[in-house]
């Protein structure tokens, strides 16, 4: 049974890239996405802006804060892919293009919502 995974991309620091390097980096992303699409594994994905807010609950009040994470750690985007299992999802994540720019991939299985008969 195919199973959905979310690949959560943390960080990946682009600021020091020259235009030429940025274009090369982008081509790597295109190649990766194209491959996953052609294999029918790519489901969806979105980039996220840095910043934002974090809401929590303290002493009966909603507190709105800041983002806490360093921008180089924060989530830069995500893919949802469909694979045969965790091993394949991890294999796919090895092709993430931003490792050398300090990026990390978190691989999480999307929970199937079971509807009892």
């Amino acid at each position: 049974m195919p199973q959905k995974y979310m690949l959560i991309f943390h960080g990946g620091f682009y600021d020091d890239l020259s235009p030429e390097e940025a274009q090369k980096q982008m081509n790597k992303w295109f190649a990766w996405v194209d491959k996953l699409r052609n294999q029918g594994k790519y489901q969806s994905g979105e980039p996220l802006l840095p910043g934002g807010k974090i809401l929590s609950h303290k002493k009966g009040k909603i507190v709105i804060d800041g983002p806490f994470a360093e921008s180089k750690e924060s989530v830069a985007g995500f893919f949802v892919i469909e694979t045969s299992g965790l091993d394949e999802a991890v294999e796919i994540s090895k092709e993430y293009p931003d490792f050398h720019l300090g990026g990390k991939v978190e691989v999480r299985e999307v929970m199937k919502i079971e509807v009892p008969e």
Partner: protein
Amino acid sequence: MESDIPNKTHYMVDNLFRREGARIVSTLTRIFGMEHLELAEDVVQEALLKALQQWPYSGIPDNPPAWIMQVARNRALDVLRRRQTFIAKEKDIASWYGLEGESTDKFFLDHEVRDDELRMLFVCCHPLISVESQIALILKILCGFSIAEIGRAFLSSEETIHKRLVRAKRMLREIRPQFEIPGGTDLATRLDTVLKAVYLLFNEGYNASQGERLVRAEFSHEAIRLTRLLSSHSVCDRPKTHALLSLMLLHAARFTARLDDLGQLILLQDQDRRLWDRALIAEGLEELDRSAGGEKISEYHLQAGISACHCLAESYEATDWSRILMLYEMLVYIDNSPIVLLNRAVAIAKVHGPRAGIHAITKIKDRKRLEKYYLLHAVLGEFSMELGNSEQAAKHYRKALEFTRVKSERMFLSGKLKSIIENLN
């Protein structure tokens, strides 16, 4: 599953980011004024990074340059709006705001954008700025190379290049040049400065004697691109411009044949002439024809003429050395630098024999300046060989080896030396 980004990847041409980014910096500088040059550079860099973050998810937009332009321009407007109370004049604000509703098409009229690049080229080559800074400005602003890339190409630290650029831009702020192609009596001298800088930029790429070879080869391509821009502009379309373009094309036609698979230098006499780019040679000769219009012969005319002799020769043996020598005799009137005189000595030796070549070398004024130039000694070694004086030749080749660190050149010289020593024994 159907892909909704149908292989758009393949439509993104090489260097699109570098080229378009640089082009847009020029156009934004026209719109916002010279004093906002650095802002233009910053917002374009931001726009490129934004593209890098978004396009992998969204696909490449239909018109990537327009996308980059739009994002950069909006960002610039944001920044200026925030700063406006401090710096902007009422009139400026009004004109910037006026931009917002407009379509970007207006900024992409080909001739306008091309002229922006030329205007920027004249700004970068302002005569009050040193030649090395002119080249750094061209590479950074007009060709879109990063400071790190320029540093690697020149074997300089980023720090050095950064300082050079900062100084040059400070100078520009003091000079406050008009963002325009000079007209009238100014044009000739200003154009000379521009041609000189572009010529030197070309040489930086051509003499791949240091730094990162691939980046440096790009320098030559960029120099050709800029000279083509100049030659296609009604005001800059002068005989000298065509002569320079011809010279570059006739050299570039022989680029690939100059190096073997290992990146080692191949001498003219050993090059496979079938590898020369016939299309570039044809274009170069056409440009040489076009350069014939003026009343003055420039150093570019003569160098292009010399290069044409090589390009037209079926083989090394068939080279028309008398004609080359004649062109060198004319060239020394314009440029009697030791390097030109050394090249002339080679032509003399080809026409009148090695003894005459050696004599010409001993007569070089300022020969001392060539003492540490390996080619002087390599040429003397060659002449000695031709005269059958192996021991003297070996001495010259050893000396030549002292003065080059370049692997391909060292390999070549060691090879020569080795064969002499083997024959002596």
